[in-house]
């Protein structure tokens, strides 16, 4: 007994080194050995031609020549500084969030930092002049991180900053005929990754508040609100996104006065928000149902009224519980934005197809779509990683 009390016994190490891992998982029995070898042979058969193609045959020049088109579509080249400005402000906000909220925002900050540094390296390697802009972005991010560490009332300022950021990018990208420094840029010129991201962000963050209201409405005791919410959610969930986009693009103008007919991009955004709100509502409802009755009772017993109970006690817990579902919807919408190609918007997929029509680059389907594939995948990977970190950091109270 004495020995056990005085010496710390470590847990036994079950797996020792990569060789032991290989033996345990891949070569434990004769049929496992056979399966491993067979699978390796299949992989080799698949990958060899792909690598061969990528290193010899492929004309990657199509990507380099059209990179700006991929990123911003037909956005006027002399106005590109406006896109950079939104990136700089974004870098500042990410840095500020990192400094103020530490762990919660660290995942996203690391991704942004990693991306920025990679872009600098890539640009330097290919001798593109944009490396200076990325360097500025990284510098801004780091500078604002340190500001965030010492900023009084940092949380409030940062939250306000994010809140104002979305109208801000809209103003900067769209411009206005009343501001000489920012001449308006018609939305049919927006395109590529810029448009895809704008649609994703506006679609999701526009839909979330609406979805929360619908979820609360669906549980309301007032029949009018309850059945309106149910009706809306079930109607939208019952039809494909494409039909909603068509409706928004073609029918919406008929319902609105002539002076107030939003352009095609705004119509697409309205369509995406309406669509996404129904799904977010069901996600949030799942979280609301997971809250114990005792939480309502404790809040009521303290004298909190219905609105205070919902906002201070129920929603924070419900939303935290459904972060995985919310980020799942976020990713879905990101990919679904490719459907706006159908109503004539040049997001990444449509841009890719228009690049293929250039006479210099005929027959480069594989290169172009591989690039689009990588863009989608990298963004989703980054987002998944970042939201997992947020989830972990917010899980404090659950432990």
């Amino acid at each position: 007994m004495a020995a056990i009390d005085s010496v710390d016994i470590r847990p036994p190490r079950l797996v020792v080194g990569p060789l032991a891992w290989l033996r345990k998982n891949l070569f434990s029995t004769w049929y496992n050995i056979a399966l491993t070898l067979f699978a390796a042979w299949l992989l080799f058969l698949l990958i060899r031609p792909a690598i061969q193609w990528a290193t010899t045959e492929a004309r990657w020049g199509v990507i380099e020549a059209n990179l700006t088109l991929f990123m911003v579509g037909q956005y006027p080249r002399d106005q590109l500084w406006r896109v950079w400005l939104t990136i700089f402000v974004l870098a500042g906000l990410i840095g500020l969030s990192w400094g103020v909220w530490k762990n919660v925002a660290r995942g996203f900050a690391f991704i942004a930092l990693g991306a920025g540094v990679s872009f600098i390296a890539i640009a330097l390697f290919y001798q593109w002049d944009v490396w200076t802009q990325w360097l500025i972005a990284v510098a801004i991010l780091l500078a604002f991180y340190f500001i965030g560490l010492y900023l009084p009332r940092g949380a409030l300022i940062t939250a306000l900053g994010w809140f104002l950021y979305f109208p801000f990018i809209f103003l900067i990208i769209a411009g206005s005929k009343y501001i000489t420094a920012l001449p308006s840029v018609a939305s049919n010129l927006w395109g590529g990754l810029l448009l895809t991201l704008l649609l994703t962000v506006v679609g999701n963050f526009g839909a979330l508040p609406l979805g929360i209201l619908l979820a609360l409405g669906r549980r309301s005791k007032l029949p009018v609100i309850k059945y309106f919410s149910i009706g809306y959610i079930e109607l939208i969930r019952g039809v494909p996104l494409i039909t909603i986009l068509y409706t928004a693009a073609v029918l919406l103008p008929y319902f609105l006065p002539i002076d107030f007919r939003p352009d095609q991009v705004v119509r697409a955004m309205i369509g995406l928000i309406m669509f996404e709100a129904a799904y977010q509502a069901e996600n949030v409802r799942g979280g609301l149902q997971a809250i114990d009755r005792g939480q309502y009772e404790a809040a009521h017993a303290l004298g909190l009224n219905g609105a205070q109970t919902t906002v201070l006690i129920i929603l924070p817990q419900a939303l935290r519980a459904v972060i995985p579902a919310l980020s799942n919807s976020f990713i879905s919408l990101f990919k679904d934005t490719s459907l706006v190609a159908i109503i004539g918007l040049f997001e990444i997929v449509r841009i890719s197809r228009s690049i293929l029509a250039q006479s210099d680059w005929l027959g480069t389907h594989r290169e172009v779509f591989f690039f689009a594939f990588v863009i989608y995948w990298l963004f989703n990977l980054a987002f998944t990683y970042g939201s997992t970190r947020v989830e972990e950091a917010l899980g404090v109270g659950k432990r």
Partner: protein
Amino acid sequence: MNETNNQEEIIICRDVHKWFDQFHVLKGISLTVQKGEVIVIFGPSGSGKSTFIRCLNRLEEHQKGQIIVDGIELGNDIRNVEKIRQEVGMVFQQFNLFPHLTVIQNITLAPSWVRRTPKAQSRELAMQLLRRVGIPEQAEKYPAQLSGGQQQRVAIARALAMQPRIMLFDEPTSALDPEMIKEVLDVMIELAKTGMTIVAVTHEMGFARAVANRMIFFDKGEIVEQGTPHQIFNEPQSDRTKLFLSQILRH
């Protein structure tokens, strides 16, 4: 019972009935609690004692009869209900702390939002209460990081932060491990000695013996018997009371 509203009568129940669907849970409860009294309600499970105490701040609605708390009758007017809830603190069997808030935030939440107490002042009061329940060092932790006994003491502090005139305890020690029951009972006994009006549903007979002015035995939705702890323990009148007491006091 005297019809004129004596100032001392802080809770008045007259012929209170409640049904869950067809099931008659409360069958005409009449009870008057004087200010500063400590009442212990006990009885077999399913006897309606928890339902009754939850009617006193309208977490459950009674369907017949009258409940008047601190001069205000409980009814469908939500304003009256909220007003009464501010004056009536409640402690639950399952603690029901807010898991997304720290201990100190749990305690200051209601004073800040309901009473509009300035932040510094509500924090000051919260720390005072935490010292009183013996865990000031846990202020910045989350509920899930505390033991059951500590959580229940935070729940008591949270209820007291509204400076209520009445405290309701609904089986406050039933979900606790034996070694933690005492720390919660000590806090309750201390509270009873300050003159707080307390209505507690509990089977902690040590607590009842120490501080209760009156014990009330519930069975099948009715008050079977009531009296001082001395009367209840030494000369219970009803056979049901005798049987129940013999069951819970055997060990």
